[in-house]
């Protein structure tokens, strides 16, 4: 079971480990309920001992508060039908109007629980319980880049045109992952995310 307290703790621990900048650690990866430390294979110590010591030191020195992990991110989303092939179906299944589905999605306060599946792909918790549906029975072979989708009690935004089985209810004009940026990913674990409904004209205005 996903435990939001554990999830937040993992992110705080990851931030503390990352801040130490240990040269033998190549990657610090927080996930839903666990943390991975990827170490340099050239490192000579007994890795399990050294890692345990590092974690103990981080815990002893105190972890950053959850509010200080991650940033505030605003994501403009156009919920027009042209970008939202599953909006009608979600509305029918939840007994809401399509406009209400979009409004409820846009009103939510979300937190990035985990990055994974593809570069820049964030699993965000905080979806209105009224919108919680299972994934589509048959995944789509290609979901357009920027598609905003929901399933279970989470929402995601597809960073690339890739295969996916979540219910698509909108699209953002933002580029979520760009290897040419200094910070390639728009999202990171712990970010607090808000969606802002925009019109089709505004979407075009982003000129993506």
């Amino acid at each position, binding site marked *: *079971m*996903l435990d939001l307290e554990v999830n937040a703790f993992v992110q705080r621990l*990851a931030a503390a480990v*990352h801040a130490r900048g240990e040269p033998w650690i*190549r*990657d*610090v*990866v*927080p*996930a*839903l*309920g*666990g*943390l*991975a430390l*990827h170490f340099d*294979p*050239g490192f*000579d110590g*007994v*890795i*399990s001992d050294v890692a345990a010591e590092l974690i103990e030191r981080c815990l002893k020195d105190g972890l950053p508060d959850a509010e200080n992990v991650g940033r505030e991110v605003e994501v403009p989303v156009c919920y027009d039908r042209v970008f939202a092939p599953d909006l009608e179906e979600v509305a029918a299944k939840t007994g809401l109007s399509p406009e209400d589905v979009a409004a409820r999605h846009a009103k939510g306060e979300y937190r990035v629980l*985990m*990055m*994974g*599946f*593809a*570069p*820049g*792909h964030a*699993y965000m918790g905080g979806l209105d319980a009224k919108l919680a549906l299972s994934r589509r029975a048959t995944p789509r072979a290609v979901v357009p880049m920027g598609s905003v989708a929901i399933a279970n009690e989470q929402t995601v935004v597809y960073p*690339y045109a890739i295969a996916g089985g979540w219910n698509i209810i909108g699209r953002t004009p933002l580029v979520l*992952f760009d*290897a*040419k940026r200094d910070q*390639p*990913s728009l*999202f*990171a*674990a712990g970010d607090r995310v808000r969606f802002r409904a925009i019109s089709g004209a505004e979407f075009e205005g982003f000129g993506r």
Partner: protein
Amino acid sequence: MTLRILRPGILMTVQDEGRHGYQHVGLCPGGAMDPVALALANALVGNDVDEAALELTILGPDLEFGADTLIAVCGAEFEANIPLNRPVWVQAGKLVHIGRVTRGARAYLAVAGGLPIEPVLGSRSTYLPGRFGGHEGRTLRRGDAIPLAANVAALSRERFEKLKGKNGRSVRWWAPPLTAPDREPILVHVIEGEHYGRFDGVAQRAFLDTIWSIAADSNRMGFRLGGAPLARPTDESEILSAPTCLGTVQVPANGQPIVLMADHQTTGGYPRIAEIAWADVPRLAQLAPGGKVHFARCSLDIAAQLRKAMRERLEAALHGIAWEYGN
């Protein structure tokens, strides 16, 4: 100065030792599938071990160099019109032909001075799923011109002059290929994965007793293992998506294990039955589809010793090459 691809072979990409520090945003390190062979190929032409090189897979290319260039092909054995596993002086305009693989699956073609391609996020490795890095983020094609160092001819001459044991356009010695399989099945060491205990004794034994065959739909992201499917875990309680690693062995619902390779996803929610010892991943990467592997269980300590031993073998080979350069 460039090298031109006259015929591309199969899945030829530019790779170095990968881009680290981005797994927390979902980007895997990628890089050479066999980093040991990459290091040797680079050392053979006098480069730093982590320079970018061409990764050849199963069928090699025809190449034409725009300048006199010192090159080396190291890793799997291929049919070729140049000797392998040693530095070779290639004259400008001369055709380098590399044909089918005869042992192993992947080799690295390194050139003196490396491939001066603009790095992306600190690496020149091609990441095919994201279409970035390497040459235009893609597999190389006929007609592509890959940049060589501006001073490649002078650099190549200077390095070739230093080499001991010269014999015409190459040398009388060669580097030991450390990762190409002598015979199959190859033996690969694994430690228990997080969910090993969810499988019953029969499935655990089947995993270790089966001679697995690399399935045809394997790629740089993962190797699918063909064989009798493993029985589902007896404990089927929910598994939360968790970080994965190079060499993680996942078992999806169909019971056919998948080994995560260089371009793997950074998290996964399938039961993880095993983790392959780092030292043995490059050897596994040398299996082509149809190649055979079986697994031996070991402790984390043994895996660490294997890692140290592999590093020492590589260091010894690198020292040997440096000695031939008079260093």
